[in-house]
Structure formats: structure tokens, C-alpha cells
């Protein structure tokens, strides 16, 4: 065992599937640790490898984990039992959806960079300390991103910060408390914020590699989950204040609503070609001015959505009774039906298709099977605006005195920046009167705004769970989850799912650990709710 050399070679696994070969042979085509880690170019390559490993598996998980338990997708014509069981709240450790291994692959790739990159400075004189720190910042941030998904999904998970490069390491890590992990991530991200590049040479790189802004967006998101609202707002403000991002502008025309010549109201209609540009820049071309960090896909490396969302496959589709008319309200005046949210029909969904990933424009053709190249958007500017809005709203709710209304107003202004850009429908729920704002109504309004803004971008379940668990499920917060169960589960499962969400220990709000992980790692304890 000791004289075993390889292990850091990658192609090895691809070339030699079987275990015995893998033990006995020196790789022929692969690169060994001794040969690798000689130049800064190799460090760069290894960092790029980290990103590639997000494309390969985690994007699918980010989508499924964020949407299946939420209320915006439902079974299509062709049912996948592993998806439909989750939609109905019948979640079992055998369900392949809960397999986390692809995220740990990314984590280990990052750990490897963090372990070996510093040594390259000894052999490559042109590799500066600053460059090293920047690469490390990328690896730290990508790793933190994966752990944040894991903690929000499973709560407590094994925390591995060491690279697995040798067979005699202890691989049987027990779970670490999610709270402890989040503290670790905050520590890492504070370093990354300092060291990550502010931008790269091309727009594409600046959107698809970690920048200091990505690190901040992630940090703000973690603060929000930790209920550290002042820190969250501060971090968001750093991104907003940078002036590097903005909402895609959409021109609007005013439409008067009249009755017998008397103007009763005015509504706005978004310019269709601007709306289409928003769609194309965000979901077809990618790298929009709004984007902070996204995972790009190409015709050579497709995103995973064809096999789930393509109309001819039709495994998952929008849950129209919830999405159309509720999450996206109907126009206020039926005879001014053009006054709609540009994120609704023709963007997030179209008929019974999750259009963002399927369409080539708002009204254009469906993508062909090999053209599934919509980027996976992890953070965009509106997320920062709405995170800060949520933080200000919470600061208000946790404060007393007249100042509270100031906080609420700040939250409303931030939210309105998003709503204006998207021509959101002005329902009474958003009719806040300055100085007389009910904080709880505003809280709900922000959640619903997030549902529209990030429809099918893998955020809905985490948003609702964050709302429910706030202040240790204080007051009626659990109702956020119960409402989700009411609108998502099939009628014959609804009451049972509600009962499950009422689990006093809240373990049912997190995933079970995949069976094969439990079987191989004896130190891993199954989530109590699933451990019968």
C-alpha cells in the first residue's frame, strides 16, 4: 500500500475500471502527482477542472434539490418514480436523487488544488504569491458553494477539507454539525473575498469563474441562512456599490385603464423585443450584465435538462395551477392582458414546458436535443438585491421603534428595483403604503418575488425552508412549508406530507443520506427521520 503512487491521476479511473488493475498498474497515459504540479499553467488547469466537475453532476442536483420538494414543478406525461416520490413527500435513502457524491467530487478537486498549488511556487519562479492566492480563492469559494448546498439539503454532513490523494487516509468521516460547517465556510469566504480576482480578461471568464463578487454573493447567502442580517446586508451592499452589475433594462409603455372616458388606473406594458432580449441574454447567450456567477454549457457539453424538461421527454413540467395565476398573478385588468410580468409565460414557462431551459427565444422554437446550452445561473444581481431586501425586512422585524419603517422602506425599494425591471404585476399584495408597512406582509411579498425571479433556478425549496426555519421555527413560520405541501403534493398525499413537515425535530426538512454512503461509511449516521 505504501508504495502505491498514483492516485492523483485522473484518467486512470476512466481507463481502468476495475479495482485490481487500478491497484497494480502505474498509469500509462495519466499524470502522476510527481509529474504534475510543476507550473502555474498546471495550477490553472486544475482549477478549471474544479469548474468542469460542477458541470458534470452538481448542476442536476442543484436543480432537483431546489425544485422537486417545492411547488413549481410536477410530473409530466412520463413519470420518473424517483422524482414523483419526492414530489409526494415519499423520500427514501434509496432514491438516487439524494446521492451527493458528485458534490464531493468537486470538493475533493478543490481540496487537491489547495493542497498542491502552494508547492508549485517552489518550482515555478514565475508563479507569484498573488496568483497563488487568487487560485486558492477560487477553490475555496467553489468548495464553500458545494458545502452550502450540502448543509442546506442534509444539515449535517462530513466536512472534508483535506485532499484524498492516498489510500491510507481515513475516509470514514462522521458528520459535522451544519452550523460548524457554515462557520468554516464564512471564514474561508472572507479570505476569498480578499484574494479572488475582481474580474478576468473576458466577460465570459468573469461570469463563469469565481470573482470576489461571487465570493461575496455566496457569503451573503450564507449569512442570510445563518440569520446574520447586518452582515448579509453589508456584503450585498459591497456588490451593489461596485456598480459592476445591473438589471437588464426593459422599455415600457403606459396604458390607461378607462371607464367611459375616465382614467381609473394606469398599467405598464413591457416592450416585447426588450423582454425577448432579457430572455436571450440571460438564458440563451448567457454572461448577461445581471449575471454574477453561472455555469456555462456548450453543444459539446450540454446541461442536464434535456432528459428532464424537453417537451418530447416531458418528465417534469411547470405546475401550472400554482405557477400561472398564483406565483405569477394574472394581469390586474383582464382587458389589459398585455400588462404582464416578463418573467412569466414565455420566459419561466410556456404552456406546459419549463421554457427557460427549452426555448430559443420567448416565442421561438424549442431547442433540439443537442442544443441544451442554457447556463446554470448560480448568482445574479437580482439575487443580491432581494437578499438585501430580505435582510433589511428581517432587521426591521427584529427591531422596535419608528426606525422599523425605514428598514422596511429600504427593503421595498430594493425589491422594486427588480419588480420594475421585470414589469411585475401590481397586485394589492405589493401595494405598500410608505410609513405603514406590515413587516410580515413584506416578508411574504419578498418570498414570492424570489419565486418569480428565480423560477426553476433551483432556489425555491431553500427559500421556503429558510423562511420556515427562521428564529428556530418561531411563531407560524412552519406554515410556509405547510403551504408548500398544500400546493405541491397530490391530493391523496397532502395530509400525510403536512404531518411529516410537522416533525418536531424538523429532520424531515432535510434529505436522507444515500444508502450506499451509509453502507460504506460506518461512521455516518442516517438522518433520524429516515432511520427506521
Amino acid at each position, binding site marked *: 500500500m505504501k508504495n502505491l503512487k498514483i492516485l492523483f491521476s485522473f484518467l486512470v479511473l476512466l481507463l481502468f475500471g476495475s479495482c485490481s488493475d487500478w491497484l497494480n498498474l502505474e498509469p500509462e497515459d495519466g499524470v502522476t502527482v510527481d509529474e504534475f504540479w510543476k507550473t502555474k499553467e498546471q495550477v490553472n488547469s486544475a482549477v478549471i477542472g474544479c469548474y468542469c466537475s460542477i458541470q458534470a453532476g452538481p448542476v442536476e442536483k442543484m436543480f432537483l434539490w431546489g425544485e422537486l420538494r417545492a411547488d413549481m414543478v410536477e410530473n409530466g406525461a412520463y413519470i420518473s418514480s424517483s422524482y414523483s416520490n419526492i414530489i409526494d413527500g415519499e423520500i*427514501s435513502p434509496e432514491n438516487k436523487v439524494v446521492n451527493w457524491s458528485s458534490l*464531493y467530487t468537486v470538493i475533493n478537486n478543490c481540496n*487537491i488544488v489547495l493542497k498542491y498549488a502552494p508547492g508549485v511556487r517552489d518550482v515555478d519562479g514565475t508563479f507569484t504569491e498573488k496568483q497563488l492566492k487568487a487560485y486558492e480563492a477560487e477553490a475555496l469559494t467553489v468548495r464553500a458553494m458545494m458545502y452550502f448546498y450540502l448543509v442546506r439539503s442534509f444539515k449535517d454532513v462530513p466536512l472534508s477539507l483535506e485532499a484524498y490523494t492516498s489510500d491510507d487516509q481515513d475516509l470514514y468521516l462522521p458528520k459535522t454539525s451544519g452550523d460548524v460547517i457554515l462557520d468554516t465556510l464564512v471564514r474561508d469566504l472572507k479570505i476569498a473575498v480578499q484574494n479572488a480576482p475582481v474580474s478576468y480578461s473576458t466577460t465570459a471568464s468573469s461570469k463563469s469563474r469565481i470573482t470576489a463578487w461571487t465570493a461575496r454573493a455566496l457569503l451573503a447567502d450564507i449569512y442570510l441562512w445563518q440569520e446574520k442580517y447586518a452582515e448579509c446586508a453589508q456584503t450585498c451592499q459591497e456588490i451593489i456599490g461596485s456598480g459592476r452589475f445591473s438589471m437588464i433594462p426593459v422599455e415600457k409603455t403606459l396604458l390607461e385603464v378607462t371607464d367611459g372616458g375616465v382614467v381609473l388606473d394606469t398599467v405598464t406594458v413591457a416592450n416585447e423585443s426588450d423582454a425577448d432580449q432579457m430572455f436571450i441574454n440571460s438564458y440563451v447567450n448567457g454572461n448577461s450584465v445581471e449575471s454574477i456567477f453561472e455555469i456555462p454549457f456548450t453543444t459539446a457539453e450540454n446541461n442536464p435538462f434535456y432528459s428532464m424538461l424537453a417537451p*418530447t421527454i416531458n418528465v417534469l413540467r411547470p405546475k*401550472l395551477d400554482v405557477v400561472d395565476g398564483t406565483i405569477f398573478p394574472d394581469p390586474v385588468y383582464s382587458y389589459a392582458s398585455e400588462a404582464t410580468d416578463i418573467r412569466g409565460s414565455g420566459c419561466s414557462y410556456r404552456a406546459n414546458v419549463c421554457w427557460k431551459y427549452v426555448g430559443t427565444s420567448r*416565442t421561438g422554437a424549442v431547442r433540439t436535443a443537442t442544443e441544451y446550452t442554457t447556463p446554470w445561473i448560480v448568482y445574479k444581481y437580482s439575487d443580491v438585491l432581494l437578499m438585501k431586501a430580505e435582510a433589511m425586512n428581517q432587521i426591521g422585524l427584529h427591531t422596535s421603534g419608528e426606525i422599523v419603517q425605514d428598514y422596511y422602506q429600504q427593503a421595498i425599494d430594493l425589491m422594486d428595483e427588480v419588480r420594475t425591471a421585470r414589469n411585475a404585476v401590481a397586485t394589492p399584495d405589493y401595494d405598500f403604503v410608505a410609513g405603514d408597512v406590515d413587516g410580515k406582509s413584506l416578508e411574504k411579498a419578498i418570498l414570492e418575488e424570489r419565486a418569480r425571479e428565480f423560477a426553476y433556478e433551483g432556489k425555491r425549496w431553500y427559500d421556503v425552508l429558510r423562511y420556515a426555519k427562521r428564529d428556530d421555527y418561531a411563531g407560524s413560520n412552519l406554515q410556509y412549508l405547510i403551504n408548500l405541501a398544500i400546493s405541491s403534493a397530490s391530493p391523496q398525499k397532502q395530509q*400525510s406530507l403536512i404531518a411529516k413537515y*410537522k416533525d418536531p425535530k424538523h429532520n424531515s426538512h432535510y434529505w436522507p443520506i444515500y444508502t*450506499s454512503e451509509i453502507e460504506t461509511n460506518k461512521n455516518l449516521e442516517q438522518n433520524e427521520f429516515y432511520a427506521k
Partner: protein
Amino acid sequence: MKTIYKKISNGILALTTVVTAVFSFSSCTDYLEGKTFLTSDDVMIDEYIEQKDPSMSEFLRVADKAGFRGMLHAYGTNTCFIPSNDAIEVYCQRQGLDSLEELSVEELESFVKFHIVRDTIKTAEFVDGRLSTATMLGKYLTTKTVQEGSSDPVIRVNRQANIIDEDIRAANGIIHKIDYVLTPNPYTVGEMIEMLPENYSLFKMIMEESGMVDTLTNNKESGKWYTVFLQSNESFETAGIPTSDLQVGRDSILAKMKVAQPDYADDDAKLLDLFSRYHIVNRLAYVTDLSLTSSELSIATNQVLTFKTNKDSLLVNEYQSLTKFEKGVNVNKASDWTDYSCYNGVMIDLEGYIQPVKRGAEAVYWELTDQPEIKKLKEYRKAGSWVTFQPGELSELSFGGKNNPTITYVVASAWDVKTQYVHGDYFEIPMRPTLLQWMEIKTPVLTEGVYNVWICWRRGGDNNKFKTTFKQDGKEDQVLPNVFDLGEYFNTSNTPEVNLNNGMKQYNAKSKNSVVCSRNCGAIKVEYTGRHTLRIDALSGKSQAAWWDMIQFIPVDENQLWPRFDNLGTAIYPMENDSAGVNCATISPYDQPCVGDLSN
């Protein structure tokens, strides 16, 4: 789209795979350590209990004695709800038995049969209601996940026992270990109604007087099921029926029934009978079953209860038409008596008052394109758009055939005498035996009565013929008399009366045209209010598609020719006492001349 990732040398891309291995089988050498591998580890249910979980041994002993050991040992598909030894002990204590062996073999047999379902049902397949298959005793078990107080959520079976160990797999089935013994309710629905508490006194009295309690008590042969909708005194009060004096309450119900059923106004006994029968359905339907149907026929002739799920509530008898809206009443899901299993059925408790209603036939002028999925489209009624649908994509319009038929929703780009579709939109349907062979259309709500069915379309093709069948659940299919030819032209030189005699009419208001047609498929008899089905089967033809606009259901004794519809969907009627008929300037598009007979 080109991205930076791909510019990097290939060797490194493989970084991706390293750790799948690390976490799934850490190291190669100890992969097999600490595990015992058997050539087959299949054990039968009885073997599982003997070898792995003796805490269920008491049940096995009983099964032995009742003669079920052979079954538990044979290959098969079973789901066994097995009470633990402790559970059986508690049960015996409560029954005053020293042990179950004091029971006769027949009693033990029933005992075991009620714990076994001959199907493999995992907990993931449970619903909030009854299991899909009955127990060997012929009675159904109910399941529901409940969470009470500060305890963990549990699955409760038959309102009696909680599952303490679920989904244990054996070679011949699944075991769910439970913490109490399951016993069927020995009382029939009739007997249970008699036992209802005081606040059901008025319902009880009516059901007794009408003789329905006897019906529900005496019919207990296997396979005969009843679902009874209960009215508590509170639910009567919601409709202003007093319950403090039962006779006054009874008279109040009769008064309401007389209004709704004028045919029987003089026959109190008949009215009470109708009222009682209307609360009974000849099927075992728990709340879950009801939430999946839109209507159930009661045992009052041709009287239905309709159901609509709205978030977490289940509404009974909501009804909406052009002219009427009747608010429905909620099923009281929280009531102890809802989903209450009885020997021959189940009870469902209502929050409000229901009674049979007699609604007359009402004309429905329906745009076929108003399908729920299409109304959600951005392209809905937007000029110049089209969207194509595959089979299965429209929930209320199914179709099939050979060579991948599709239906296209189209909105005409501009008004034209030949594209006078209502709202400009239509379906392009390639109806023919070699392509789209059949379609089934779910109708809007139709009230009971006799209707002519008019299909309004723009002609196309040559000799593409089909037949039409009207289907309503529980009734015989009605094949409509007229074979339909989609290639037919509208005869513009005939008078409207002559055309009507030939089964044709002008349905569009602005300008009669030889390609814009409406044909009467024949009359249907709607026996009860509800959403029914029109089935269309292609008979002949192989030419192009035709374009479908509306389907009109017009009561046979009403005017078949009017209203016509303009392109905004406005119903146009001829003006009375005006020989000039309709004012052409009121028909959209307003700047176009009218062609046709405007007065009749």
C-alpha cells in the same frame, strides 16, 4: 457558445471523476471486509419473523393455528401488517383473554385475514385514505401519516395502530410491524348512523323515516359498498334549517325540496326518499377517491354530486354557468366521522347542506380551443401565433392514431371572410384513419336535458369523415346519428330554414361564406349534470386537415340559429320587432360589410 472551460488541455478535464470513488468505496482492500455474502438471502415472511425478529412471533403462532403458515411460507405477493407480541398482549388484556388461542379457529382466521393484503404495498404507495387493495377479509384498511403533540410523525393504520417498523422486505412480500391489533368495524353504515352523536339527530331522523337506514344496515354482502354523506345539525343550520325542534327541521327540508323538485311537491315521502338517496353513493369513496373524480352518481336517479379540489379543501356541488353560480360546500376533513370505515362502506361529513337540484338544459357555446393549457399560453388569442401539441399534452383533449399525429393551435393573423374564427383562434386537426384516428374531448359542464351538438369549423380536405359518440360515466354510450364530412361546403344560396333542415347553419355573424360551416351532429341526452366526453372516430378520407372553432350544445327546444358569434366572441341576436334584423355596424370587425341573412 464558447466557454473558457473547454480551452483547457484535455488531460485535466478528468479531474472530475476522482472522488466518486473515494466516497463510494474508499479503499479497495477492505471492500469485502465485514460483510457476509450469501448465494441467496431471500427469506420468506415466516422465516424472517423466526430468524430476525422474534418480537412478532405471537402473530406467527396465530397464523399457524389458523392455517396460514403455508401461505406465509410460499412465494407470492403479500403485505402483512403484523402486530408485535406486546401489541397482541395489550389487545388480549382489553378483550379479557389470556391469549388469542382462546379464540375459535374461524375467529383466528378472520383475525389473520384482516392483517394481510395480497399485494405488495410499500409505505411510499400509501395514500391518505384506503389502500388500493382490500385485505384478505375483503375489507379495506386506511392509512394516514399523523403528527400529534411533540411526537414524531407516524403512519397510522385503520385509525388503530401505528407502524413501528416499515417496509421490511421478505422474498414473498412486505412486512409493516404495528403497535396494535387491527380489527374491522363490525357495524354497517346504517348501524353507525344510528350510533352517531346527538348533533346528527335531524339527519338520523330523516334517514330512518325514508327507510335508508335499513337499506344501509341490511345490505352487507361482500362487494356491496356505500359512501354516505353526513349532515350534522350544524350543517343544516348553515342553510337556515332549524334543528332544535326536529319536526320543524324536517318541514324546513321538505319546503326546500319542494322548490327544487316541483314534480313531487305533493309527495313528502318521495321528497324525503330523494333527499336521503342523494346522500348515498354506491361505491367505496374516501376523501382521496373523491378528490380524484369530478362527480359521483348518487342512488337518487340521475342525481350527481360534483367534487372540486381547491388547495387543501374538497368542495361539493360548486356549479357555474353563464347565468348561474352555486357556491359549493366543504367536506369537513377534520371531522371524526369523515373517512370513517364501516362494515359495508364509509362515512363522509359535510360542513354545509346539499340536496338534489333540478337544473334545466342550458345552451353552451363553447370554444374548443379554450383548453386549460392553451389559456396559459402567451400565444393565447394572439394573432399570427401557433403552437403544436403532442398526444398527452392537453389534459382535456386526448387524441391518438398512427404516424405521430399532432394538433396545432393557431390564431389567424388577420380577419378574412374565410378565417372568421371566434377570437381568431382554432385547432388544425388532421382527422383521418391514417393519422389522427380518434380524439376524446372533455365537455364543459352540461346540465341534464336534450341537446343538439353543433360542430363549427372551416371546411378542409375531401371525404374526411368521422362519427361522434357521447359518453357519460355509468350510462350507455350514445352514437350520434349524423356522419360528419369535414370537406362539406356551406350552401350560401339556400335559406337558413332549408339549411337548418339539412342540419347546417351559419354560426359566424359577419359574413356567410361557403367554407365557414356549422353542422348538427345529432341530439344527445345528458342524463345528469357534469362534464362528459365527446369521442370522435375517423372513418374515411386521407386528405388535408380541417380547422375546428366551436362546439355548441343547444337544447333541442331552443333557437338553433341564434345567437351567431363575431370575431370578438360577442353573441349576436337579431333585434325583435325590427325587420332589418341585426345592425351590421355592431358586429365586429365593424368596418366590414355584412353578408347573409340578418333577420332569421
